[in-house]
């Protein structure tokens, strides 16, 4: 534990200490200029990593936020006479506001549409900066003066220290934020937006928050950029810079502060690399050797597909051959960026730091931080009264898809403390009913009441907030997150610290409490030993159980289990039955959709049978099994001669 702390925090301290002493050792203004840029690009890339790394979206607007922040800070000095800190705040605010504005239309989108929206925004920003000549000076450019700090004019080392201090502050705040429930929510909504909403963590506000936050850092970096160069031109913030920033993030390594730092160093050094032909040849030769080593190893071990191994070699080979043919490498700048970025994206998708982090963790044998002991289950799932009063009431519920009447007038009452089975043949409307109750679909008509008051309609998030939790038949886990974090994302009633405290790192107790509670739930489902395993690496059965643990973290009054036994091996089914009984003992009401009739018979107090979107029978399991209408729905004809035969498929 101590070793881990010393190694990780130590590396950060040493790096910042070294960086801050350099101006005392040398007065080389060129080197100082590069270091200042390194700090500025560090902040910029940490901001970009929020969207590209944590949200997993291709964000093409970050260069525009740099520009908007730079102009806002520069103009606030020349027009409004702002000082250094208020001007930087203006840059930050510009990023925050424009980022928030763009996030509103963009937040419903992902993948290519998101990339397109950000691309358009960035083109629009450059156009506007170019055309608003009266304000920005247009393509002529804008001279910016560096304001004084507390009445003192800053010299070059002073400005460098300012940038470095800001980088350190951003670094610490982001480290705290990304390790908190916010960082987990960002990653959760990348892996499954639907489940994020269903776990009561709003994708909407988290996506806006993440994007606005990243853009605000872009704006802050823009302010520093303006006061560093003291001259701005709209064309500095175009597409090419954006590609360089992406190169920095991808090469450095996503989801990593160190990755952003490494990426920033690369961006700062690139122009020097390109202006010196010999340096470039050495560099590209090293690149080729790396690609050969990695590709060859991958091919021999058969861990990478041939294309993934060979393509970087070809690209780097082109770079080496091109470097010896072309006289002026500067002319081919964009092509060189393209080949480098291509090699990294294909050959080293995790980036340098992703690669190094694994390697270093092995080298120093850094154990993951220890976990607290599980909290007592009573603390996590407080006992609820099972008084048998109606908890959930559905009246005349309808949901049509065009002409298909998936649910067509469903009446059902689920009583508090019961296990209510919902069965029916395939296509009978069970899943649609559950999707309407949980808010994925809005009902076409009908009434839904929870504890007598109307249940929110058509919003997974709001339904989750009033105490309904669900699992998904087709697993919707947060694949990249460890099992423990999957549960912690959903955990209700633990996170109370406001954002500023989290940023300052003063919410650690809360985090420990959340871990203890999540562990208790994993323990209940028999997954305690796999707490650190990423959800996508768990066995299928374990993934199904993790879905239940995550839903329980909502501490729900009503738990909807959508075919929890589907695809489970037989021992796991028995285990599932025991677990559901234990959950039931805590007084949690359960709706169980299941095809395994033995599971339904053993657990359910009441069973509702659906066919064609309507209720055809309701009662105790043994009763409905003998109901001729149920038998007909399953088998196609009524066998009234042998009512005791109970000929339902038991899977």
């Amino acid at each position: 534990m101590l070793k881990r702390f010393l190694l990780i925090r130590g590396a950060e301290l040493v790096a910042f200490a070294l960086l801050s002493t350099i101006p005392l050792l040398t007065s080389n203004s060129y080197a100082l200029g590069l270091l200042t840029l390194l700090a500025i690009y560090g902040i910029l890339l940490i901001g970009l990593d929020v969207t590209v790394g944590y949200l997993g979206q291709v964000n093409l607007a970050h260069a525009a936020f740099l520009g908007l922040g730079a102009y806002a800070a520069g103009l606030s000095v020349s027009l409004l006479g702002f000082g250094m800190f208020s001007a930087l705040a203006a840059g930050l605010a510009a990023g925050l506001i424009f980022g928030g504005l763009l996030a509103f239309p963009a937040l419903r989108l992902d993948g290519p549409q998101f990339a397109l929206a950000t691309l358009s925004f960035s083109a629009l920003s450059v156009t506007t900066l170019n055309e608003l000549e009266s304000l920005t000076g247009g393509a002529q450019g804008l001279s910016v003066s560096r304001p004084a700090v507390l009445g003192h004019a800053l010299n070059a080392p002073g400005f460098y220290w300012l940038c470095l201090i800001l980088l350190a502050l951003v670094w610490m705040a982001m480290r705290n934020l990304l390790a908190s429930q916010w960082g987990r929510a960002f990653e959760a909504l990348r892996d499954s937006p639907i489940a994020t909403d269903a776990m009561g963590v709003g994708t909407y506000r988290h996506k806006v928050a993440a994007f606005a936050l990243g853009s605000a850092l872009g704006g802050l970096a823009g302010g520093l950029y303006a006061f560093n160069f003291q001259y701005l031109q709209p064309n500095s913030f175009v597409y090419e810079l954006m590609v360089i920033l992406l190169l920095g993030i991808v090469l450095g390594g996503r989801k990593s502060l160190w990755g952003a730092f490494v990426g920033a160093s690369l961006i700062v050094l690139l122009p020097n690399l390109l202006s010196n032909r010999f340096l470039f040849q050495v560099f590209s030769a090293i690149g080729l050797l790396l690609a050969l080593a990695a590709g060859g190893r991958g091919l021999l071990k058969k861990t990478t597909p041939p294309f993934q191994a060979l393509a970087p070699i070809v690209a780097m080979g082109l770079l080496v051959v091109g470097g010896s043919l072309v006289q002026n490498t500067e002319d081919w700048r964009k092509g060189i960026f393209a080949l480098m970025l291509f090699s990294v994206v294909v050959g080293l998708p995790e980036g340098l730091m992703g690669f190094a982090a694994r390697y270093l963790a092995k080298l120093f044998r850094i154990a993951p931080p220890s976990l607290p002991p599980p909290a007592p289950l009573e603390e996590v799932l407080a006992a609820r009264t099972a008084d048998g009063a109606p908890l959930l009431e559905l009246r005349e519920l309808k949901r049509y898809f065009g002409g298909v009447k998936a649910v067509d007038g469903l009446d059902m009452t689920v009583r508090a403390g019961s296990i209510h089975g919902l069965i029916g043949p395939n296509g009978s409307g069970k899943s649609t009913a559950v999707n309407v109750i949980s808010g994925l679909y809005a009902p076409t008509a009908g009434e839904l009441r929870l504890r007598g008051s109307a249940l929110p309609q058509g919003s997974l998030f709001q339904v989750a907030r009033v105490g309904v939790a669900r699992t998904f038949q087709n697993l919707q886990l947060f694949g990249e997150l460890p099992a423990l974090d999957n549960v912690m994302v959903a955990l209700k009633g633990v996170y109370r610290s406001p954002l500023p405290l989290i940023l300052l790192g003063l919410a650690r107790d809360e985090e420990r409490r959340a871990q203890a509670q999540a562990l208790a739930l994993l323990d209940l489902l028999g997954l305690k030993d796999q707490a650190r395993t990423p959800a996508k690496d768990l066995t299928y059965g374990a993934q199904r159980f993790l879905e239940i643990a995550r839903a329980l973290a909502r501490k729900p009054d009503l738990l909807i289990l959508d075919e929890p036994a589907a695809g489970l091996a037989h021992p796991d089914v028995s285990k599932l039955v025991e677990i559901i009984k234990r959950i039931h003992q805590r007084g949690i009401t359960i709706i169980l959709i299941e095809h395994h009739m033995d599971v339904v018979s053993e657990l359910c107090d009441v069973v509702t049978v659906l066919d064609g979107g309507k209720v055809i029978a309701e009662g105790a399991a043994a009763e409905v099994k003998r109901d001729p209408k149920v038998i007909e729905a399953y088998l196609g004809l009524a066998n009234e001669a042998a009512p005791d035969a109970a000929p339902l498929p038991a899977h």
Partner: protein
Amino acid sequence: MDAFVIAQMTVSGALMGLVYALIAYGFQLTYATSKSINFGQGELVMLSAFFSLTLINTGLPYWLVVPGGLLFGVVLGLFVERAAVRLALEQKSEGWILLTIIFGLFGFSAAENIWGRDDRPFPTPISSDPLQIFGVGITPLEISVAIGVFAVMGLIELFKRKTLLGKAFEAVAADRDAAELMGISATRTIMLSYGLSGMVAAMAGILVSPITTVGPTMASALILKAFAVAVVAGLDSGFGVVLIGLFLGALESLASFYIGSGWREAPGLVLLILALAVRPNGVFGKASIRKV
């Protein structure tokens, strides 16, 4: 007088809009089969145009230049599929966005160094002396653009409907897994769609270059508007891109006339962001139901 200016602006803008529509149609072809689009399509248009220009300069007759240019587009399209798209699709990731952007960047750099940074005229046998139709001047060159756009789109639609290969294309577009179960190779169909998309882009380049001249920067100018048309119309409506293309072309021509030529790009960009905000599936697109 003013009415004639407006009419003139509208008509020549709308005819340019057809070129955007054609490029947007190229996005739809690949989106249908693979749910991916080439972010470097603008560079593909530009490279094909430069290649055709080189063919013209070797003295090849125009009727041989066109197929040569189209073939070059097909080859580039196939290259994009192989180098930038296939791996990402196999890994079910969205890496193709970044990789096609990279292709575009490399294509831009290559064009700058091979053909130079300056805009160059693109000679054509078709006259550019305007014909007066109801007081509005339209050049035969502009008419050739309209004919070319509709011919290419019509032929591809015919191909999709009438040939076995085309039906395979439609099958993969409708349901990739089901098509594969029927023995249709989705990978080959996606290759086909990228080849066709490259051809369409090359055609757009050959059609537009005589009007706009050829230069590396034509890529970014065209691509943003084509994106706007594709997104506003919806990525699955061939009919929609033509309408939106005509509309957007006219709109930007009027905007550059009345507000200033620097704002030329603005209407498309604003429309694109608005469309994404209000109707992410486009005006003519179909909304899909979220399933779990």
